[in-house]
């Protein structure tokens, strides 16, 4: 395929996606004086601190309450502001789902930033590992849901989210992960990217696990199995055209996400394919379990989201073709 993008899989540069958000928010703040930022007592760890330093008058410290965080942001939006609100994904949108839903019903122009998503949060354990957030956001009408694959993509997603008029949820991670894209890599909301091509199976991934997906594709290639890998960063509205084309061309699909399999990105892909081009599918993600304390990589392996798990899923799905 001529429009396959080349992503860097050397793993040389590693940065957390929340870092890119912090940079992107400052750019968004410079682009639009109506951009304001609200944070629930996590200014340093959600990287809103950069915006606070640059625009102290447009930063609002909220204390630890995520429900009012969302509704107060909705009020700011309805009065013309473009509020970015941040906490850990477990608490916003986790704790604030009702407020998010009502804000979307008003088409409030809020940008929800959920950091520390996934089991890779690590030692903090299950209470702080949001692995249900995409399920509870993608079912809300009009809410755009984005899970960037690396820090640079998170920066671009943030800048683009500020330009969209309407609610957006961006899911971020705590840990450093490989930077695969560059400043020159194109990014548009709802435009998935083919980053490795093949015809034996398609691996559709979102978030930093795109790296594991690309590593799996490399390993499989050594065994003569050629995979198409799709960077499916926008969970909603999803790029149906690219997803359907991947299913048609490869005849088998594996989805990869750091999230519960129930209701996540893979479920959304299955909904599209079931109606358009049903093909065998395998799902890499969390199998109806809670997380636990541990190191990020050992947790990803334990819960079945390592490179070997993607390889195994691809082989299994090909057998079912």
């Amino acid at each position, binding site marked *: 395929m001529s429009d396959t993008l080349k992503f860097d899989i050397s793993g040389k540069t590693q940065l957390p996606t929340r870092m890119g958000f912090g940079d992107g928010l400052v750019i968004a703040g410079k682009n639009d004086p109506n951009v304001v930022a609200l944070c629930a007592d996590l200014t340093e760890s959600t990287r809103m601190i950069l915006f606070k330093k640059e625009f102290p008058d447009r930063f609002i410290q909220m204390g630890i309450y995520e429900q009012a965080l*969302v509704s107060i942001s*909705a009020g700011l939006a309805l009065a013309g502001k473009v509020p970015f609100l941040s906490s850990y994904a477990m608490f916003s949108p986790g704790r604030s789902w009702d407020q998010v839903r009502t804000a979307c019903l008003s088409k409030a122009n809020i940008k929800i930033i959920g950091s520390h998503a996934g089991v890779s949060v690590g030692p903090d354990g299950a209470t702080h590992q949001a692995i249900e957030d995409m399920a509870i956001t993608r079912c809300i009408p009009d809410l755009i849901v984005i899970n960037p694959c690396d820090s640079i993509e998170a920066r671009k997603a943030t800048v683009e989210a500020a330009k969209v008029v309407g609610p957006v949820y961006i899911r971020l991670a705590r840990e450093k992960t490989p930077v695969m894209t560059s400043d020159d890599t194109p990014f548009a909301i709802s435009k998935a990217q083919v980053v490795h091509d093949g015809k034996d199976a398609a691996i559709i991934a979102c978030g930093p696990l795109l790296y594991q997906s690309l590593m799996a594709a490399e390993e499989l290639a050594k065994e003569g199995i050629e995979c198409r890998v799709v960077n499916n960063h926008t969970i909603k509205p999803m790029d149906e055209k690219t997803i359907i084309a991947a299913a048609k061309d490869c005849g088998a699909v594996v989805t990869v996400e750091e999230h519960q399999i129930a209701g996540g990105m893979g479920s959304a892909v299955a909904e599209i394919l079931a109606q358009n081009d049903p093909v065998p599918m395998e799902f890499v993600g969390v199998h109806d379990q809670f997380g636990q304390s541990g190191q990020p990589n050992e947790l990803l392996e334990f819960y079945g989201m390592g490179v070997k798990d993607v390889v195994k899923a691809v082989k299994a799905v090909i057998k079912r073709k």
Partner: protein
Amino acid sequence: MLDLTDKKVLAIEEAANTIREDIIQMLLAAGSGHSAGSLDMADVFAAFYFHILNHDPKNPDWADRDRLILSAGHICPVRYAAMARAGYFPVEELLTLRKFGSRLQGHPERMHLPGLETTSGPLGEGVAQAAGMAYAARLDGKSWRTYCVMGDGEQDCGIVWETLLFAGAYKLSNLTVIIDRNNIQIDGPTEKVMPLESLKAKYESFNWRVIEVGGHNIRQFVEAVEEAKATEDRPTCIIAHTIAGKGVDFMEYKFEWHGAVPNPEQAEKALKELRTLGGKIESE
């Protein structure tokens, strides 16, 4: 604000009575909804739409309008009736309340009806959104004010106290909250379901100014709003002591009418009472 002459007070009281009649007719036609709170807030809403608010019914999106948020979205019949009587939309449309395709949704929705500032119903969210609007006005150096009407049962919600903390900390003096203190909620009297008192002391401890008024006394209420506008260092909460179901004798003080609507005979009785001002005048 224009002077509140006795003649003006009378006109607002008459408007409130008309709004009460509208509410009965709307709830009868809808067959479901919330009677008690809608009726008891008629005076407050008449005062807002016919005296207090800086607004333009023909230009509901006017940028410098005052914002009125109904956090207790379930009593929206009173708001819809007041809006229609103020000229936002035709009075006949009131009878479409809660019906398929109506702009008058069962709980108010911003995207359906111009003049609604937001979508409300999930309790406690409206006051938080109001605080956000007030903060935005201050950021922009705008003089428009934000008012928010809440229920007393609504005070049970955690998000309310999150918002009180926020508005108190940021001294949002351009925000005024009105609590409909009718002492009832669905399951019974508020002090039995989940005691709130002393509500005044609670608000004051969150750095709010509190003014208590009779919720059916137009002059007292308007003066309290004037005091709130003159307060520059804190948000203000006006606790409006009301009679649940005010104006309809068999509904007054009864929590059973929180979420119930009159049947045709009850509606007829209620309308007769409202049209004769409780028997003060003979003809309807």
